């Protein structure tokens, strides 16, 4: 079970990486509007100008 000594610290590092990534996602505004994009895709004007 010695592998735990490696795996658990590795999981910790992963957790912190994911946490930091998530923090960045929120800060960049990806979670500000969770409904708008779903509507926007329907009202998109794809016709060339």
């Amino acid at each position, binding site marked *: *079970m010695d592998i*735990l*000594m490696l795996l*658990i*610290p590795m*999981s*910790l590092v992963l*957790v912190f990486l*994911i*946490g930091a990534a*998530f*923090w960045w996602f*929120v*800060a960049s*505004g990806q*979670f*500000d509007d969770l409904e708008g994009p779903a509507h926007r895709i329907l009202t998109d004007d794809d016709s060339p100008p």
Partner: protein
Amino acid sequence: MAGPPVVDASERTLMRQPSPASALTARSQIAPATSSLPGAQSEGVASHCYHCGEPVPTASRWRLRLDHAERAFCCAGCLGVAQTIRAAGLNAFYTRRTGPAESQARVADGSVEAAAAAELAGLVTHRDDGVCEASLLLEGIHCAACVWLSESWLKQQPGVIDASVNFVTRRARVAWDGRHATLADLLRAVTAIGYVAHPYDPRRREALTRRESRALLTRTALALFAMMQVMMFALPAYISADGIAPEQQALLEWASLVLTLPVVLYCAAPFFRGALRDLRLHRLGMDVPVALGVGSAFAASVWASVTGSGAVYYDSVTMFVALLLLARYAELRARQRAGDAIEAIARDLPATAERLVQYPQSMRADTVSAATLAQGDAIHVPAGAVIAADGVVLEGSSSVEEAVMTGESLPVARRPGNAVLAGSINRDSPLIVRVTAAGAATRLAGIVRLVERAAELRPRVARTADRIAGWFVALLLVVAAAAALVWSRYDPAHALAITFAVLVVSCPCALSLATPAALSLMAGALARRQILPVRADALEALARVTHVVFDKTGTLTKGKFALSRAQPLGAMAEADCLALAAALEQGNAHPIARALRAAALPEKVARNVVAIAGCGVEGVIDGTRYRLGRLEWVEAMLSQPLPAAATAIESEATLVALASSRGWLALFTLGDTLRPGAMHAVAALQGLGLHLAILSGDREPTVQRLARMLGIGEAHGGALPESKLAFIAALQRQGAVVAMVGDGVNDAPSLAQADVSIAFGEAAALTQWTADIVVLGADLGRVAVAIAEARRGFAVIRQNLWWALAYNAIAIPLAAAGHLTPLAAALGMSLSSLLVVGNALRLGRPRSDERSGTAARVTALPASA
């Protein structure tokens, strides 16, 4: 509140100031400083700015004697702020505050520009007596001490009449004498004590709420993530039958510690901050037991991990924090959505307008800021655009959608001479509009102000809930202390766990979290239907209403005359009589004339028409003289008395007689017509089990007829203001809760006597509204909607309170008796919290009837070019 001894308290504050985060940065900066500059430590970074708490890098030049000691400051800005605060005698700010203030190094003074822009944007209201009013959004407000400081400071400024700061919305409402101060002075004054004031602009508030919800989302999600991971680490200890190896157990514990540390320091920070704030203000809020539970359980776990003996509660701590944050996040989102519904009304105004500078000579249009429009300007409104100001149509005809103002999504036709309102959408073709009111003077801005004023007041229910929550927490702390005492004698090994369980299991969320949430959601749901609660306690009264009194017949009727009966008295046919009447009334603006014209087309032309005020009209058609008007006046022309048939119905409504010089021709009965939907509204109100009554100053027969038509049992005509008052008071003595429905400009005494008053916004000027609830538009059915919604909301609040009572009554004794582990307690409390918040959230969901209405409005919007 007793003032703390100033000297000691300030010393304490200084010691406490560095938060965990700033303590870390301070330590990391000390290390290089000591290695490169030995001996310089005392004047290096040993001190922190007394104002903002940032490290003072070198021997500071900025020093000030304050609170009996010499204080160092990081920059001239902070020093200046502290000097100002000292000079104003507001030192107590430093002892009352809970954290360092904003650093002043970054703050630049833009007061004059900001004030000028605010004036232009109509954010300043000028009253007739020279008093100005503005809403300011304050940046840098952290705690109740900040609110106290800025409020007291503003009130000290010359010319300021009143200032109040709302902690929740971070907004100040200031009234000042325009002759003694300007907005720029006030903005500069706020800057002088270290905050930044912005004249209120909804868009900036949006940015603030966005920051708030982002921060809470990050905290919640990270806590949930850490919770899952810690649970995984905790699982082996729970499921292994014969225990796991000590060194592996230690590894898992330390891994959990590393994960729990950010949860406690970062994610749970709002709880600690809230608890500190509450304690500073000598009160007990719901954050106190949470912070106590989380803090002590974490500290005990760390101690156990370090010493290698004792139980750890990392899993309980992370789960507790994560689920509580989840409830808070749900509540915040719902509250913001409700606020959005109210603010949506304001946001519909466009930012720019096309001003026709040389109209009517030239049609050259300049695009200008809508804020700079003034009365008398001509503006061009393209099809599909939103009208930027109130005005009168000069050219063009189009249909205009006034949904924002009236809730009516069907467009109405507008021709030259018609009035248009700011915020309505021009649907079909371009219009040229002469501005009659712009900026803060528009009706839309008036409504927004009204609603904002209401939103700044805290209803009695919320205040009571807060007070009870304080007692509840105090009781809880006593129980926890007692449990700790008893168990430490009886079974010391479990005393700690049991105390944690008691602290954590209690759930005051129904009081402190769910009740305010339910109230604001209710307000939001009503605002979406154009029902605006203006007084904070209005909803509570509305939910208890038993009697609805219509205080004017005009509330139930259109207030417009229409022909209800034409009775021929001579040989002439009804249609011919009407045609004659219409011919006589051509060009007459009297309401009766309009009603008669609407009833028939004139086939002939009347000559020598004379209108006699209060009597009627006289004219000649085809050589015959006719009179149309009051019976007595018409009778005076003839020698015959009125036929008997006419007197029989005389009392019913307004009567107009038509006669030629040869004899009586016809009798027209004119009456008010019912508002569309009045029948339906009355039925809906009766369906809610409400007693209805009409109380009107109109003539008794008219009122009785109306009551019969609508099926309202109780109706009193000819009512004087005093008798209205007496009627309502008599009802109330019998235990009734009375709602008064009117146009809001009636006798103030009876409106004040009623428990709640509802006014329809289309009828009256905004300044005259004295109602508790204002309904935009003319749909009477909204009264029933408002009452039903308020009842639903208070039913939810009651459910939550009963649940909280039952839950706490069972859970706290269980925990105190040692039957709950901290994990079970944390789970129970979190789930109870989520349950009450979730229950309150039901109020924010649009119901089916509303959803279809919204859809209709969306599809009716013009496709933007």
